[in-house]
């Protein structure tokens, strides 16, 4: 498994080096910048800091700009991670190399882990850019590096990874990337509390939002970084992330296994 992960990592690194999709990266940076700029403008220039009672109540008097920046960073990173890992197999299909991948006895999970690790390197650069934007708009991100926040980041990445595998099987099943991924990301940015507390939504959407591991990890991360709480009082959120990610990983692996049989038949039949 580790050999496969390593090999995939190396291959993807070479692809990224030689055929770097600059427009994609620029697009993501622009999107991230405006994701922070919009609430910043409303807060600073338009409504001049008049935060509503309900926001204070649901977020324990959080600093608005920090709250928004963390949400935007999580969303942009989640989007690029899920997109790159989720699209890996679909891209093989498009490029005509899926047959060879399916015929090898290589570990499928190792393949995806390799994609994930390669993507994380690029995500880190994106993270630094976004954090720079946030800090220049006045976000207080200096507590972001601590033992606890690193634990939460690892949990979050696990969540993204499990969602990416689900996305991958949906894309292979529907043979469509554009509609599937963009619908998922639009819904995700709406319900998981990226730019406002989940409690603002109607009840049924709040229940729905807990299908995404990102809802719990955002709440956890914010309470650690903004409210400076300890992770030990939020063990329920940790459990929620672990259960969801574990469940999705299991479902996705079963789905990919079934799909694999179908795909082999389609491709060679």
């Amino acid at each position, binding site marked *: 498994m580790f050999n496969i992960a390593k090999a995939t990592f190396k291959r993807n690194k070479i692809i990224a080096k030689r055929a770097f999709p600059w*427009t994609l990266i620029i697009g993501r940076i622009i999107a991230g910048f405006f994701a922070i*700029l919009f609430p910043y403008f409303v807060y600073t220039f338009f409504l001049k800091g*008049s935060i509503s009672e309900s926001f204070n109540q649901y977020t324990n008097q959080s600093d608005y700009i920090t709250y928004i920046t963390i949400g935007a960073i999580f969303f942009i990173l989640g989007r690029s991670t899920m997109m790159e890992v989720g699209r890996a197999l679909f891209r093989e299909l498009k490029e005509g190399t899926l047959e060879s991948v399916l015929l090898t006895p290589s570990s499928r999970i190792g393949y995806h882990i390799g994609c994930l690790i390669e993507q994380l390197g690029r995500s880190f650069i994106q993270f630094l850019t976004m954090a720079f934007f946030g800090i220049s708009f006045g976000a207080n991100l200096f507590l972001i590096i601590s033992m606890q926040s690193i634990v939460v980041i690892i949990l979050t990445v696990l969540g993204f990874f499990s969602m990416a595998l689900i996305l991958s099987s949906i894309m292979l099943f529907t043979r469509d990337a554009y509609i599937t991924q963009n619908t998922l990301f639009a819904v995700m940015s709406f319900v998981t509390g990226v730019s406002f507390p989940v409690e603002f939504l109607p009840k049924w959407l709040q229940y729905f939002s807990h299908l995404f591991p990102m809802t719990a990890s955002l709440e956890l991360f914010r309470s650690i970084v903004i409210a400076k709480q300890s992770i030990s009082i939020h063990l329920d959120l940790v459990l929620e992330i672990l259960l969801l990610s574990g469940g999705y990983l299991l479902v996705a692996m079963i789905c990919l296994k079934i799909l694999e049989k179908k795909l082999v038949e389609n491709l060679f039949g």
Partner: protein
Amino acid sequence: MKDTFKIVIAEMKKQHRHNFHSYSIYFSLLLWPIIIFFNTYYTYLSFDLTKAPVFSGLINSKQSLLIFLITGFIGYNFFYSMVQSAWQMGAERQNGTLETIILSPANWLAVVYGRSLGALFQNVWMFSTFSILIIISSRSLEVNFFTQIPIAFFIFTLSATVWGGLMNVIFLFSRDAAILNNVLDDPMEFFSGVRVPTETFPVWAKMISVIFPLTHSLTIVRGILLKTNIAWMEAAIKLSISLVLLFILTIVLLKLVEKNIRDNGNITFY
């Protein structure tokens, strides 16, 4: 003149036959904008609108916020569907039909505006329906409502078509103008005041917002629908000036494209 109209109509019909069956437009031009609309609305709920410093009486309740946002979104929907239609110019090139169009005696300008009008009518009707529902649900129904809506749509259609003409010409230059897509998506949306009133922008942001005709169209339409005392005459003049400038730019660029193709192109572009 009659020929020009014929070409515009023909191009619109072609667009309709070519794209209308595609289910993907129900996502990209209906479902996603609706989700983003509600996302923006809920983002505003983090603020106390009643405590806010009054801004020309424009947004002080949830109802006026809804109307403010939906006019922004419908305007953006009009303009963005133009960028998307121009983007499909690339497909015309790859399919090899661009040569046929260029070799035909059809007036290019007519083709370009036919493309933008065609894309407009089939792309915006869905979100327009949604917008009208939102507007009706968030304000009391009056008689002049039925005159205001057509005026609003006329302003959007006119300005978006001119804008779409320019977009289509720009995409004639290059096979890969995807970078333009990035520049015109988020920045145009933000600086034309789709979600934040441009009147409250700092000076540097106001200077950027003047470039986009969407800014002026939105000022006028919001002036009509929200009954603000913003000088809408001034906005109308600004809008007409920017539309005329865009039109001139379109013609100049079209000439340059033609020259470029004659100098560097061969009979098959792709």
